């Protein structure tokens, strides 16, 4: 049959009929067409289905003609393969839904199993594994015979096992082998296949049950590792949000309720930077965050200095008034941003190096979380070095430990106050750059972090940066081990209760400052 279609494309055969079905804009017709075309053996099959996946397959409902277009504007008639000058205006891209996307993946999988490109072959083997349709078995066997690359070969073997497991007329030996292959794979996908395989001969069911048991055991161990990683990641976010507050509240003792808004300003700075890059220098997009970090520090820091000079310096030593004033200030800042940028979320894109994930054993590590963890540790290290080794750091410590003494040594204490507050605010701004990658950029961004930040600083011990670090990671990990057991809502409550109990026992937090600085 396909020989005729292939040799004489001008005649209407099943292939042409199938192509014409794309123009019906009906999901079941499209599905039928995909099946026929993928099995037709025509050399047009791959370009058509590939175009369908990318939304480049155009169909004209009036003339029932279907066209394959490519990125640089060239198009061919899908039924004949002849080039056409232009696609009529009435044509629109053939629509897909989830069911069809799966069919397209399966079809493309068996069509590209022998592609010259290694990555494509691997992907093809994986999509055949996922769809494990009997029709693909022949193609898999053919590809296996020719395949030289080790990892593709392994993927193909797994795909073959998946198909055989579901094939009703496969022999018991084949099925047992398939179970063994899947057991060796040992991940959640293998588990899904084994649990969902339905009726099988007794020996296969037994082998599958033991395979399921062993996979589940190993996954249980991995899930502990995973919880620990999630805890570190949550801890790093908490630390990042709290680290600025550790300076304004921890070191200076200002109850700064507007701290969250500094984070928000940092996030909006990132948004503005990305907007400028998007419109003027689209090539720089991957560097947008690197550009945003110093800018966010400067913007938030400058606003911090301004706040200190205009409000907070009149309120030192009056915690209640400070609390109310900064609380009011946080509302003012929120509404100001809402008026300037609108109440809706703003889109901050992820640069390519912050999107996606990689597999480490059986856990998935997302790049954005990994980078945020590293970034947080870097910020922490720089801050620590700054306080320890620079003149400003020395002055800051001197002023916060004993203001009068520092003043009599010739330190301009009010200047140091302003700079310290600016530094804390600037670091909050940097946190905003990172948080814009995982959270909403909206005027409310800061509010959701302020409570957590205070919790971390108080728990870790006021005035101690190391305490903040340990506090953040402890809370993060405790939270993530509680969450699977207690649920997100109860987990959060449990953490709060634990902190309250802890503070009863040790009012000064994990690492209390000792010596005369405490009384100052």
């Amino acid at each position, binding site marked *: 049959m396909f020989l005729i279609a292939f040799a004489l494309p001008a005649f209407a055969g099943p292939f042409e009929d199938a192509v014409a079905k794309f123009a019906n804009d009906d*999901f079941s017709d499209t599905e039928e067409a995909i099946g026929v075309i993928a099995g037709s053996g025509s050399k047009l099959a791959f370009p058509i289905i590939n175009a369908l996946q990318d939304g480049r397959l155009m169909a004209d409902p009036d003339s029932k003609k279907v066209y394959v277009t490519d990125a640089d504007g060239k198009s061919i008639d899908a039924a004949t393969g002849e080039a056409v000058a232009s696609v009529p205006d009435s044509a629109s891209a053939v*629509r897909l*839904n*989830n*069911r069809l*996307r*799966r069919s397209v*993946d399966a079809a493309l999988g068996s069509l590209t199993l022998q592609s010259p490109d290694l990555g494509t072959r691997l992907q093809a083997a994986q999509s055949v594994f*996922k769809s494990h349709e009997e029709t693909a078995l022949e193609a898999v066997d053919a590809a296996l015979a020719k395949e030289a690359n080790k990892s593709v070969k392994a993927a193909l073997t797994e795909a073959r096992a998946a198909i055989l497991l579901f094939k009703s007329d496969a022999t018991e030996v084949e099925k047992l082998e398939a179970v063994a292959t899947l057991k060796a794979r040992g991940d*959640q*996908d293998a*588990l*899904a*296949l*084994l*649990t*969902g*395989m339905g009726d099988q001969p007794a020996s296969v069911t037994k082998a599958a049950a033991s395979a399921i048991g062993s996979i589940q055991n190993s996954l249980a161990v991995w*899930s502990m590792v*995973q*919880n620990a990683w*999630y805890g570190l*990641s*949550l801890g790093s*976010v908490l630390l990042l949000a709290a680290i600025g507050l550790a300076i304004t509240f921890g070191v200076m003792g200002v109850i700064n309720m507007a701290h969250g808004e500094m984070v928000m300003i940092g996030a909006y700075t990132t948004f503005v930077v990305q907007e400028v890059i998007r419109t003027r220098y689209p090539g720089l997009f991957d560097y947008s965050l690197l550009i945003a970090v110093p800018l966010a520090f400067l913007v938030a820091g400058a606003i911090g200095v301004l706040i200190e000079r205009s409000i907070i310096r009149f309120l030192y030593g009056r915690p209640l008034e400070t609390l109310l004033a900064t609380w009011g200030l946080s509302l003012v800042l*929120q*509404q100001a941003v*809402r*008026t300037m940028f*609108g*109440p*809706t*979320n*703003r*889109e901050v894109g*992820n640069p390519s190096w912050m*999107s*996606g*994930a990689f597999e480490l054993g059986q856990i*998935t590590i*997302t*790049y*954005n*979380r990994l980078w945020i963890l590293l970034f947080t540790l870097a910020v922490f290290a720089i801050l620590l070095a700054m306080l320890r080794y620079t003149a400003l750091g020395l002055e800051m410590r001197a002023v916060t430990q004993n203001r009068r003494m520092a003043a009599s040594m010739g330190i301009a204490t009010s200047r140091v106050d302003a700079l310290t507050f600016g530094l804390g605010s600037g670091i909050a701004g940097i946190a905003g750059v990172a948080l814009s990658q*995982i*959270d*909403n*950029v*909206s*005027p*409310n961004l800061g*509010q*959701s972090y302020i409570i957590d930040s205070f919790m971390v600083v108080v728990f870790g011990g006021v005035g101690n940066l190391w305490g903040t670090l340990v506090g953040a990671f402890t809370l993060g990990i405790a939270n*993530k081990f509680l*969450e*699977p057991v207690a*649920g*997100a*809502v109860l987990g*959060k409550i449990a953490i709060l209760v634990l902190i309250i109990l802890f503070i009863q026992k040790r009012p000064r937090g994990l690492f209390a400052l000792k010596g005369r600085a405490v009384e100052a």
Partner: protein
Amino acid sequence: MFNKSTHDIAASFSRRGVLAATAGLMLGLASLTGAKAADDTIKVGVLHSLSGTMAISETTLKDTILFLIDEQNKKGGVLGKKLEAVVVDPASNWPLFAEKARELITKNKVSVVFGCWTSVSRKSVLPVFKELNSILFYPVQYEGEESERNVFYTGAAPNQQAIPAVDYLMKDEKVKRWVLAGTDYVYPRTTNKILEAYLKSKGVAQEDIMINYTPFGHSDWQTIVADIKKFGSAGKKTAVVSTINGDANVPFYKELGNQGIKAKDIPVVAFSVGEEELAGIDTKPLVGHLAAWNYFQSIKSPENEKFIKAWQAYTKNPKRVTNDPMEAHVIGFDMWVKAVEKVKSTDPDKVIDALPGTEAKNLTGGTSKMLPNHHITKPVFIGEIKGNGQFDVVWKTPSLVPGDAWSKELDGSKDLIGDWVGKKCGNFNTKSNKCLGSGS
């Protein structure tokens, strides 16, 4: 708002000189202070948060009502009088909603109020509307289990959104295992209770249903997304039904995208994610995830195209999106205008009696009707997220679905109906033939 009025004033300067501008300014001031000349206008209250957490969603609805009033006034107003908006800001503060509602009705003497988003804000204003006998149009999908004489519900009841969405997944995607994920408050909890009962009635086993609640504004979704992945690897097709609210959606979808959960593996159908919410995310990794609504901006109908054009012209923003609750206000506003014109009065009792049976064109090409239980008939659409932040409709109900005030799936409410025409009762028990009376 502010930008617009300064722009108008500037325009007047160039056109008619300083005198006209001063007059315009004074008019503007008069409308701000609540207008002394009350007799020649009909006042319409707008009770939507313009600050605080809910401002993200509700500000658009305020603009929608102002736009609708503007359009109506161009057509000559209602009963020969101009409409005048009275906008208040309840600031996402639930008790303040009640105060502001009272202020609108007693001080500003509005004839009708369009407002509220969250169920808790609606519940907080209910006693005020009952006591002062006024009318509230509520435009947001909600959990049902309510029918009040003074409230008209133009958003979807659960049987107009959640149930059809689950039906679609069951039939078209052959989903056998369900994750019901929601934010921890009344709407998700009630909706999930209804869905759980419905799924069980369709033969889904308890172990195939996972229910998960998260706090408001939850931002660390790693564990939950990993749990969903794990739950989905039991060899049965799995889907997530999401009643996650507002802000928490962005990090949720980002985490799904990053952990590589594609819609073709585990689709997520959401009831609170619309065009406005998607405006804040890169939707390319989300292509294929679903939302169930009664309106999508991408639906092609002459009414919709006309509306979008006028709306974008009014807001002077060619990219401004439209969404489902906006359409609910369009329908509600139209029904109110028709009812007022029918009884030739804005008297609440007369308008409340005239509203059931009133029909209004919806934007998707059908005609919605106000039912005796104060809910309306609506079509239900399932849309897939596209790469450009819009939705592609993949399924719709063959006809308009009438809203149930009381869910047929829950034991406590399956015998109840709301009927303000014949029975004059919001919670009439059809078994015992009795009205349960107040205390819905």
